[in-house]
């Protein structure tokens, strides 16, 4: 016969998992209740992360279609605090900068306003502006038409106007062919723009061509804002060169911004809200862990006879410890799985209500379950050690 030291007790891993699922099978209701806290905790965490990543995904997607390579340069204020104007030949110089792909401009006409018709009170401008712009403007700002066509070489010369999305709405214009009243002249609407996220100033603008602006309103050709797109890799270089190219005499007066940055910042989920939910989630997870520990302590007390019997059949202390540890981990993982599904559903609901696509990184879902398994392991340690210390003789005689 082999010496005992060579005939060790062995427990297969599959059998260990089977033993660990005892609690779930024998007391499903108790398992559900004790896993509830963990489910709530992990659901809150997943929902927070899911909502914020889904909203960011939307912004990313929007930016991808709009491009992040657009810079806007505007005339700041001069030395005396007056609104500065940009030199008329600035756009030409911008186009010559290395890496610049397209450039365009607008000029705001300060003293000219747009109305539905001649009968409207001149004070009721509705916050709308009249700007001068040319053909290439819509390309540079990624603005899309929802109706009609853009100003082209032909229509630029005539009293034709393209309205921004908000401007059309304020003026009550639904389709092209209508006329509006600009600076005492009747203009025909040839196009209506969609919302313009990278150049929001266009939303409330009525855009007319340079030639007609010179003819009717003495427009001097000086732009107020220049839009420019460059090679993605060269955006930073172009940004440095822009002020000098636009206004060589006083580059300091030129203000350059990158609208895509502002857009990204505006759309990130409120930090305080996120912090609050993460806090609630952690507390629920902690309470859930205590719930699992409590269930395990009760389970160990109830099953002393079983523990003693297993010891007499050859289970080592480590086998008993592992059995109860695995049971706690499976219990928590069960809560984690349910919680992850609930968290995903909450995210899907919120995303649907906001018109986002659901974008939860798969790693987050995996991490959710892993975290709960760790919580279960921590909660199960003390009950498992207690189970392993149970004296087989007293357990079997009682």
């Amino acid at each position, binding site marked *: 016969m082999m010496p005992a030291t060579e005939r060790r007790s062995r*427990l297969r891993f599959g059998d260990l998992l089977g033993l660990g699922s005892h609690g779930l099978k024998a007391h499903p209701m108790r398992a559900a209740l004790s896993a509830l806290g963990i489910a709530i905790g992990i659901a809150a965490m997943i929902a927070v992360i899911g909502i914020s990543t889904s909203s960011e995904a939307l912004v990313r997607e929007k930016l991808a279609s709009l491009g992040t390579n657009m810079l806007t340069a505007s005339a700041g204020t001069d030395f005396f605090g007056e609104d500065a104007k940009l030199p008329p030949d600035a756009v030409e110089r911008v186009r010559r900068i290395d890496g610049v792909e397209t450039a365009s401009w607008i000029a705001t006409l300060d003293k000219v306003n747009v109305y539905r018709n001649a009968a409207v009170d001149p004070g009721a401008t509705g916050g709308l502006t009249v700007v001068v712009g040319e053909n290439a403007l819509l390309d540079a700002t990624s603005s899309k038409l929802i109706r009609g066509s853009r100003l082209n070489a032909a229509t630029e010369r005539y009293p034709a106007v393209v309205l921004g999305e908000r401007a059309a709405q304020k003026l009550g214009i639904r389709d092209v062919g209508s006329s509006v009243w600009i600076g005492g002249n009747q203009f025909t609407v040839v196009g209506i723009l969609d919302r313009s996220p990278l150049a929001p100033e266009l939303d409330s603008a009525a855009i007319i061509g340079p030639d007609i602006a010179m003819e009717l309103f003495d427009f001097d050709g000086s732009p107020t804002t220049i839009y420019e797109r460059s090679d993605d890799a060269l955006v930073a270089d172009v940004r440095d060169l822009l002020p000098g190219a636009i206004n060589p005499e006083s580059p300091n007066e030129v203000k350059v911004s990158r609208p895509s940055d502002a857009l990204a910042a505006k759309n990130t989920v409120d930090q305080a809200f996120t912090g609050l939910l993460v806090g609630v989630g952690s507390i629920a997870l902690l309470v859930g862990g205590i719930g699992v520990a409590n269930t395990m302590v009760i389970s160990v007390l109830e099953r002393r*006879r079983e523990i*003693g019997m297993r010891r007499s059949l050859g289970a*080592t202390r*480590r086998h008993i410890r592992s059995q109860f540890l695995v049971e706690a981990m499976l219990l928590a993982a069960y809560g984690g799985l349910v919680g992850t599904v609930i968290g995903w559903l909450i995210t899907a609901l919120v995303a649907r209500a906001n018109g986002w696509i659901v974008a939860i990184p798969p790693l987050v879902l995996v991490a959710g379950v892993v975290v709960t398994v760790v919580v279960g392991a921590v909660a199960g340690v003390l009950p498992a050690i207690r189970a392993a210390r149970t004296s087989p*003789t007293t357990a079997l005689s009682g």
Partner: protein
Amino acid sequence: MTEPIIELHGVTRSYGSPPTVALAGVDLRVERGEMLAIVGPSGSGKSTMLNLMGTLDRASSGDIRIAGEDTTTLTDAELSGLRAYTIGFVFQQFHLADGVTAVENVATGLLYTGVPLAERRRRAAVALERVGLGHRLGHRPSELSGGERQRVAIARAVVGEPPLLLADEPTGSLDTRSGAAVVEILHELNRSGTTVVVITHDVELAARLPRRVSIRDGRIELDQHDRTLEVA
């Protein structure tokens, strides 16, 4: 094989402080293939001695050798290995798992030897045949009589074919007829080579065994051999 399966030398076991002595210096030698009864009044230390032989408990002093192994020097894992392969236990209260079938209960007897599940079930069915319960494989303990439950417990103890079977009042909660069936199974196991140690209050049962060890106040009072009843 020359070494005895059980060897106790000056074994004592005392509980608490001030110590109450349950076993006060016991010497006992059991050869392989023997069948013996341990008898004595309640509280005399019978269960204490059986638990020490079964390595479920450790002696306060003295040496215990099981199948040649000095148990005082073995670790918990090594003692557990001894219980998994060498020792089978039967208790008065059966200690079966309520929720699972007879086959599953018996298969648990092989769980800690690392035998795969299908093989455990196969051997469990064979063990149940051996105790006359081949027709009760799928029954749960609640669907079995007391005698049948104890036979399931015996099948679980011997499914791994341990050389040593320790039984603590196996017929204690059975009626005469079921008790007799259980005793017959123990004899049968002994005839096929298993060393059987039975604690019993049943005088008739004890009288039919070739050796009776009487205990009183934690000491061996009498160790009777009856040559005529020994297995050839």
